[in-house]
């Protein structure tokens, strides 16, 4: 991928991620999050991870965000009114974030191995879905079953949480 496209999509992703945090209206936040996920999917495609890019769009920009918007509109959340700002908490948050960014820059610029460009890959006849499927069903059979059980338990738990009377 050319640097122009990389920086364009990174810029879109980071800009809309910032809008998620800055917006006061939850619906606007959720829609910004969709655009941010689309930019992230483009970055995945730029890393030759086509399958991950597609399920990013299907699962996150599709299913998860529909769920978020549904809940926001079900609860009828308006833009929140201004409240008294808890100054020590905000100050502490800003200090922690600044230190975090400083550590991030130090680590990234001190990491010599990351200076190299990406090595070329052969585009095999099978495509990456085939390779991921083979890895998943040959090496990670048991984790796949465990994750399937986890999703089942989660859906049962959601039904139980949504019952009117919890006993």
């Amino acid at each position, binding site marked *: *991928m050319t640097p122009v496209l990389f920086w364009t999509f990174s810029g879109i992703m980071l800009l809309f991620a910032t809008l998620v945090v800055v917006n006061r209206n939850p619906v606007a936040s959720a829609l910004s999050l969709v655009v941010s996920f689309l930019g992230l999917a483009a970055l995945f495609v730029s*890393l030759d991870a086509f399958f991950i890019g597609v399920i990013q769009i299907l699962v996150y920009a599709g299913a*998860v965000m529909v769920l978020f918007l549904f809940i926001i509109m079900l609860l009828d959340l308006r833009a929140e009114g201004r409240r008294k700002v808890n100054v020590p908490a905000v100050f502490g*948050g800003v200090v922690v974030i600044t230190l975090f960014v400083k550590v991030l*820059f130090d680590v990234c610029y001190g990491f010599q191995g990351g200076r190299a460009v990406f090595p070329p890959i052969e585009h095999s006849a099978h495509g990456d879905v085939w390779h991921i499927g083979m890895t998943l069903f040959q090496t*990670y059979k048991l984790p796949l079953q465990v*994750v399937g059980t986890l999703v089942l338990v989660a*859906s049962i738990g959601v039904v139980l949480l949504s019952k009117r009377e919890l006993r």
Partner: protein
Amino acid sequence: MVTLNDYLMVSGLLFTIGFAGVLLRRNIIIIFMALELMLNAANLSLVGFSRFNVQNGLPDYNAQVLVFFIITVAAAEVSVGLAVIVALYRARQTTHVEDITSLKF
């Protein structure tokens, strides 16, 4: 040319934005969305390392399978979390974290 460091930097900045959302916002749904941003930042750096670790002309697919599992678990987590938020709203009629202090010591 784009290097691995660029991807790691973008991923770290995305994580920082999500972190800022968790620390600074008080609406529980926005906090939850910021959590999703942080999960996705981790996914981006995983896929970056997978593309960088080329063996026999192929990227490391173990990392991409890990990303697949993370996305699955994140979807389950979102459904449970939103159900908890709905139950909380039904009990308290608020999504503001400063109004929910029953567990505060």
